[in-house]
């Protein structure tokens, strides 16, 4: 037996009450984990799109190409920090009915703009220095069992190879991971140079440009400046922030977020009162026992700790169960295709877990501190006289 056992013994005394408290907390933290994750999954699309990342595409629509010469023209404009470009490859592997997300990109600059793709420097260099090298995401590599050094042929449903057919021989030379779970690792990247030199059509064009700015505050001005620069040219541009894509969506979510926050606050406040009350009740019932402990030589801090840890144990254990349940619920829901199409990466995020743990500690601390203080301050003689 140890102090922890003593704590369990106090819990076991009134199982019904403990169960009710625990149940309320489990429900609350389940809701917290579930709603919080749902909300952040909705939001993550816009969060992932860095606010200082601008996309320059053809004004007609993004399937229309831009002249290669635009790269240098935009790159040298004021406020542009890093610039890269990409072209839609129209990729598939073996099965034409299963299109893949694949781009031809500038290997030297692409990953400095998209810093949420993670691979070690050695592999990055390897890819950059292999003209026929292909970078693939972890999910895609695992799906096809691709390993570094594998030679494969990826096909395009848009372009033809100069030597006939629509296959491009590539060497898998890098596999990247996502910086976080929401990063898409089901993509492939070819070298633009290799692609441009071997295709029969498309000539000296790129799909679109992506750039970082020095300062997000100047984005509006820079966007205007870029589009002005190419006004009345053969290929006019439209520049937007990545975030703008989701803006309308996010604005709607703002009010959902508010409702979720309001509901959760109400739940937590109610629980604070209920759990707080029942912890004080257990202390009141145990007055005499606390007197005995004090007579045995338990000090004030020890009594305080005993009661506080009971409250902490209650909120931490129940909260953890609630969070675990929300994890499984989210996991199950995330596998449903219809839901996947709305919220692609539905999962319990570390930040939600962290927040939940902070709330558990707060709840435990607040509900436990007052009864613990009262227990600690009990007059031993009076407590012992209580029958």
């Amino acid at each position: 037996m140890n102090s922890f056992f003593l704590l369990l013994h106090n819990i076991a005394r009134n199982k019904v009450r403990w169960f009710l408290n625990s149940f309320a907390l489990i429900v609350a933290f389940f809701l917290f984990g579930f709603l919080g994750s749902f909300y952040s999954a909705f939001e993550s699309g816009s969060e992932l799109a860095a606010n200082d990342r601008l996309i320059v595409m053809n004004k007609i629509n993004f399937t229309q190409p831009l002249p290669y010469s635009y790269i240098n023209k935009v790159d040298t404009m004021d406020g542009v920090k890093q610039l890269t470009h990409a072209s839609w490859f129209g990729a598939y592997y073996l099965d034409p009915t299963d299109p893949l997300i694949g781009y031809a990109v500038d290997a030297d600059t692409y990953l400095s703009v998209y810093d949420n793709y993670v691979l070690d420097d050695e592999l990055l260099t390897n890819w950059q220095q292999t003209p026929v090298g292909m970078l693939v995401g972890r999910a895609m590599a695992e799906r096809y069992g691709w390993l570094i050094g594998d030679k494969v042929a990826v096909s395009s449903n848009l372009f033809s190879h100069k030597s006939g057919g629509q296959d491009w021989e590539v060497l898998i030379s890098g596999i990247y991971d996502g910086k976080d779970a929401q990063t898409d690792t089901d993509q492939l990247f070819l070298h633009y140079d290799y692609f441009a030199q071997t295709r029969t059509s498309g000539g000296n064009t790129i799909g679109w440009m992506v750039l970082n700015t020095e300062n997000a505050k100047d984005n509006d001005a820079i966007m205007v400046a870029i589009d002005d620069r190419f006004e009345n040219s053969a290929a006019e541009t439209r520049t937007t922030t990545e975030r703008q894509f989701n803006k309308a969506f996010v604005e709607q979510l703002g009010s959902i977020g508010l409702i979720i926050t309001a509901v959760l606050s109400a739940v937590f406040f109610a629980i604070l009162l209920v759990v707080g009350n029942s912890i004080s009740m257990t202390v009141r019932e145990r007055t005499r026992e606390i007197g005995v402990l004090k007579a045995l030589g338990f000090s004030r801090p020890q009594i305080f700790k005993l009661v506080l840890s009971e409250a902490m144990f209650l909120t931490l254990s129940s909260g953890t169960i609630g969070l675990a349940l929300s994890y499984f619920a989210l996991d199950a829901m995330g596998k449903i295709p219809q839901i996947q199409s709305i919220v692609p990466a539905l999962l319990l995020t570390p930040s939600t877990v962290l927040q939940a743990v902070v709330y558990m500690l707060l709840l435990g601390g607040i509900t436990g501190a007052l009864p613990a203080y009262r227990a600690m301050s009990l007059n031993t003689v009076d407590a012992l006289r209580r029958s």
Partner: protein
Amino acid sequence: MGVDKLFEIKSLSKSFIKGKTEVSIFSNLNMDINQGDFLAIMGPSGSGKTTLLNLIGGIDKPTQGTVLYRGRQYHDTTEAELSAWRAQHVGFVFQSFNLMPMLSAAGNVELPLLLRQLTRSQRREKVMAALELVGLVDRKGHKPNEMSGGQNQRVAVARAIVGDPDILLCDEPTGNLDRETATQVLDILRLLNQEFKKTIIMVTHDPLAAQYAKHRVELDKGMIVNKEVVVAKDAVVTQEATAIKEDTAGMSGELVAEKGVVT
């Protein structure tokens, strides 16, 4: 050789505030308690026996006067120091056992050891030794409601001695027991006093219990009205008591509660 004074109670007063009046329980009480004594405090209900015991045990504070433990004042130290002192030196036995209902006998006995830096096996060893002494090893897994009153009180005694204190404070330890089980508990107390040299201060109404003590004081209306050396039925005690008695003229070894109190 004189006997060491364990406690010196000096002009001790205790009163409670009831409404607007101060009710005095006792005032100017003087008494020494020697190391190794087995003292019975008797007296009618409300005479302040429990209060006196609580004061000695340091869970209550005197209104006036002092109690010295081995010559040292201890009531004016911090509560933390008093707790630590109790944990090390004092064991309490209560009339109503005051065991934790959900803990087994062994769990209850182990409680005071949680305050010590001991390993699990060291604690276990001490718990078993204490249970052995009160003859309840075979009951170690039983909860209080699965045992008789006498067994519960023996568990309480084991809890009081498991930390090897030098003082046992017992408040009517046999108050809830029948004669036979009371005898078992008292036998254990006598053993603890004689073999393990524990100083025992026991509040009791029970003449049988008082028979086991070496000395007896009677409190009434806040005064020590009577003090005597018990001539017990036990031979060893009798001899020792007689020795002390003979000694009284020369040494103020044992009880010096001279007409305890001036009102």
